[in-house]
Structure formats: C-alpha cells, structure tokens
C-alpha cells in the first residue's frame, strides 16, 4: 500500500425544493461543479442541459407542480466519469413510455413532446432511472471526462 499517495475525492451536493425558480440555483450549482472538476465547455454544456431537463421534469411531472418536494443532486467523479445522481420522492414514471421524437421528421410529422428525455440521452453517455416505492426515484447520468492534458 502506498501511504504517500494523496487521495482526492470530489463530491458536491445540492438539495432544493421543487420550485421552477430553483432551476437557476441548480444551474449555478452545476456551473460551479463543472469549474471545480475542470470540465471543458462541451462537457459543461452537456451537464447543464441534462440536469436542467431532468429537474424540470421532476418538478413538472414527478411532483406535478407542487413546490414542497425535495430534489437532491449529487455530482462526483467515478473513474473517468462525472456521475450525477438526482433523487426525488415524486410520482413514478416509465421513461420507456415516453416516445422520443424523430428529429429528422418534417414539420407536419414532428412530435412536440419527448425532447427533454431525448436531449438528456443524447448529451450524456448514460442515463438510468431507478424507481423505489419507499426510497424514491433516482436518476443516474454519466458523462466521460476528458483526460487531463499532460
């Protein structure tokens, strides 16, 4: 065992109520985390957008607009990934039941909905939901982090 090795763990947490106004607070939190983790512009953009879409969905659909729910966001580094987990105690939904839009469809055939989930899945390297009746809902999203320049 190398006792001389310094282990640095980066973990960041934010807990807010389910108000639309808190989307700005969440965005500021993600910006700070991205800076701390030295993410590049593309990774920061992906993280910002995916977390915003996820939290807007939780407020609008899981908590159905009720402002007293809790949203807990945790960001950490696991191996080469930035891992974001978002936890809520709102209504369960089936992500598979939401059709993703065909982004190549012409205007007449283009679906209006499903774009938020589509963007999350497109921007992140993985997006997984876990629904638990007692413990609540957990969304885990991963984004690969660029290697540090040598």
């Amino acid at each position, binding site marked *: 065992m190398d006792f001389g090795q310094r282990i640095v763990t980066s973990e960041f947490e934010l807990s807010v109520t389910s108000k639309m106004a808190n989307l700005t607070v969440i965005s500021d939190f993600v910006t700070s985390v991205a800076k701390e983790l030295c993410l590049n512009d593309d990774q920061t953009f992906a993280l910002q957008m995916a977390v915003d879409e996820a939290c807007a969905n939780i407020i609008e659909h899981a908590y159905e607009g009720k402002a007293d729910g809790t949203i807990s966001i945790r960001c950490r580094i696991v191996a080469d990934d930035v891992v974001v987990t978002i936890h809520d105690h709102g209504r369960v939904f089936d992500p598979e039941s939401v059709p993703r839009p065909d982004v190549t469809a012409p205007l007449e055939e*283009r679906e209006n909905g499903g*774009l938020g989930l589509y963007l999350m899945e497109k921007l992140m390297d993985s997006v997984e939901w876990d629904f638990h009746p007692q413990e609540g809902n957990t969304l885990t999203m991963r984004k690969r982090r660029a290697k540090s320049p040598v």
Partner: protein
Amino acid sequence: MLSRPCEDSAEIFVLLPEGRLDARAAPDLEQALTALEERNLNQIVVDLGKSRYISSSCLRLLLIHLRKLKQAGGDLKLCSLPDKVAKVLRIAGLDALFEIYPTVEQAARAFPDYPQEHG
C-alpha cells in the same frame, strides 16, 4: 417579454426574450407568442441574441407556434442565435424546421410583407 414591430413593417413583429429560456420562462414565452397571434400578427421573428440558454420546454413552444403560424399563412423565424442555443437546435433537429438568420433585419427581410423598396 419585450416585443416590438419591425422598423420597416408593422406587420412583422420581433420578440426579444432574455436570459435563461428554461421551463420557468416557458409560460412568459407562451403568453407573448399567443398575444401576438391574437392580434392576427402571424409574421414573427424571435431574436434569441440575449438568450444564453434554451430548454426543451421553450423549444417545444416555438415548434408548436411555428406550426400554428404556418397554418395561418405566416411564419416564425429565428435570429441571432448564441452558439449554445444553435447547438441545442441542431441536436434537436430543429435547425431544419426553422428559418434561422444572423440578424433581425435579415429575418425580417425574408417575410413577404417586408417592403420591397428595402429588399
């Protein structure tokens, strides 16, 4: 949300949303677009120059109103997109559905009601 008639044609209206166009901003955007449509103004330019972020909720609204305005014989054109907003539209495949221009003037000129002498 600020809106104003185009300098050279009162038939063309410019909408100027500012800041983050997230889910919280969606009701304001909806209200502004609906208010113009209720006045039978169906040639609208949305100037996104001061919008540093756009979420799916606002993109969805723009798409719904684009369809509505086109059905009414009008159009909804976008202009002055910041890089990140342009990127979202591209990923969402919406850059193929909207006419997008670098400036308000260029967007306005693309409407049939823009005065010919200025064209």
